[in-house]
């Protein structure tokens, strides 16, 4: 390097003193440390977006409640009236509202995380930070909105005949666990989505399938009463599981099974493979 008559060549084995390679995946420890150091960015990015929600529409943030309510109204007509679920399920309106509002939190988190990297091309091509902050920030945004809508849900089910009890305090915990699980799954999708964009087209159908498999607007218990094995298997998947727990907490016993409780704490471990998978995709997200 002291020879100024020619361009210094880089020794591939021993990089020049003090220089660090660019565009190499950081070690996991560094990645976590760097992500933690920028945690306020993820938070502010999420809450900045919360502030901007509904600015484009006349009814604004009212849509946060109107959207699931209208959904619930359609399901009520189709499944409650047409398929007469309202006769078979006690407090069907409360049952349905809990299903729609809680499921929506998981579904929106999954979808938002999925699009968080491929949908932020400008940010990725101008700022350098651990990309895992994007799905996390997108998730925080959905969690914040979800917690607000859950509060509104409680008021609504009061009118639908549910009675408050101490178990209602468990609802934020159930939502948090469901959220972590959905975010973990969403992270895995997010990286796949940067390579195979077709996933974005496919996702609405997958979440629809998830919705029907989670008993949002009907009781899986009644539907599958003659197929016990299938019922147990389907009740173990996160959608059905957290809805069962939410209904058990809000409407009283008869919705969940004991083994769903430990499983509810196991599913959020999906965050670990999710985070690992996102980290492994560095530093190639700039290609989107």
């Amino acid at each position: 390097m002291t020879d100024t008559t020619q361009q210094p060549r880089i020794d591939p084995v021993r990089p020049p003193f003090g220089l660090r390679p660019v565009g190499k995946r950081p070690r996991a420890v560094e990645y976590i440390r760097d992500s933690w150091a920028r945690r306020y960015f993820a938070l502010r990015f999420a809450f900045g977006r919360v502030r901007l929600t509904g600015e484009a529409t006349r009814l604004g943030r009212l849509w946060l409640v109107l959207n699931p309510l209208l959904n619930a109204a359609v399901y009520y007509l189709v499944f409650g009236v047409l398929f007469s679920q309202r006769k078979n399920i006690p407090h069907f309106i409360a049952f349905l509202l809990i299903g729609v509002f809680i499921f929506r939190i998981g579904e929106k988190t999954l979808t938002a995380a999925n699009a968080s990297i491929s949908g932020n091309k400008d940010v990725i091509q101008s700022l350098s930070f651990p990309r895992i902050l994007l799905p996390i920030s997108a998730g925080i945004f959905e969690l914040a909105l979800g917690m607000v809508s859950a509060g509104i849900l409680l008021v609504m089910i009061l009118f639908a005949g549910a009675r408050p009890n101490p178990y209602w305090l468990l609802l934020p915990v159930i939502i948090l666990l469901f959220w972590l699980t959905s975010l973990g799954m969403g992270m895995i999708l997010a990286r796949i989505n940067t390579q195979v964009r077709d996933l974005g087209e496919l996702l609405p159908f997958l979440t629809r399938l998830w919705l029907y498999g989670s008993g949002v607007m009907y009781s899986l218990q009644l539907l599958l009463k003659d197929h016990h094995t299938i019922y147990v298997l389907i009740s173990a998947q996160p959608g059905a599981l957290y809805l069962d727990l939410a209904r058990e907490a809000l409407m009283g016993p008869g919705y969940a099974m004991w083994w769903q409780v430990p499983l509810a704490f196991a599913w959020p471990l999906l965050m670990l493979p999710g985070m690992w998978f996102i980290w492994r995709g560095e530093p190639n997200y700039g290609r989107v």
Partner: protein
Amino acid sequence: MAGSEDVYTIGSEAPVEPDLIQPPDVPADTPVTVAVEDLYVIYKITAGGRQVTRRDRAAMKRGRVQDVVALKGVSFSLYHGQTVGVVGGNGSGKSTLLRAIGGLTPAASGRIYTNSQAALLGVHSALLPGLSGRENIELGCLAMGLTPRDIEERYQGIVEFSGLEQFIDLPMNTYSSGMGARLRFAISTAARPKIMMVDEALAVGDTKFREKSRARIEEMRGDAGTVILVSHNMADITDMCSRAIWIDRGRLRADGPADVVVEMYQAQQRRG
């Protein structure tokens, strides 16, 4: 996916010797801050679900569409205290080069080393254009890795430098492009990056702001930093840079004193 004959093989083309390589006149022990060796960046047209038209697809079957090779074996080293201009026509690979140095676009082959994270100041929009200038300052600084306390300390300086005191609480999407550029410039320099890359960001500012930005760039260079400046304004390059690099269709065409390189580039532009 493209057939095998469509895939660009690195180094498959005959090497093209640059017209000029004149090593910079720096003291022998000056540390290198950015080292780029034999850098290739390739954008794969078919990958990533990018929109491909029917014509593209037909052309691909006939083996006519190749990967876009944005950089073809570029090498150079930059030193402490240098302001280096990058010149070249549209689509020659200048912005790709900056993004690769910043670690934002991955290299297909070759190596890049830097002594610290290089910050890119481009013409991109704000993080959340619907939020106020104030909130975007905070958000931009957080994204660059500043702590909330750092931001508190530097906030006033950023606003003053941008000269947007009266507009700071308005949403950024109400700003003119010049105002937005001023704020972004102020934000980017607030983190005091050791390596700063300016991509055409001075072009939209007014005369007064350009003077201020020049002073700020000079200041950063003085703080033992390295500034890389992409501009189509040759006066910017010759006034601010001691050295310039000419990138022509992904290749390093010349690397030497700014006035010499600019003259070569302009001569080629005149020839057309």
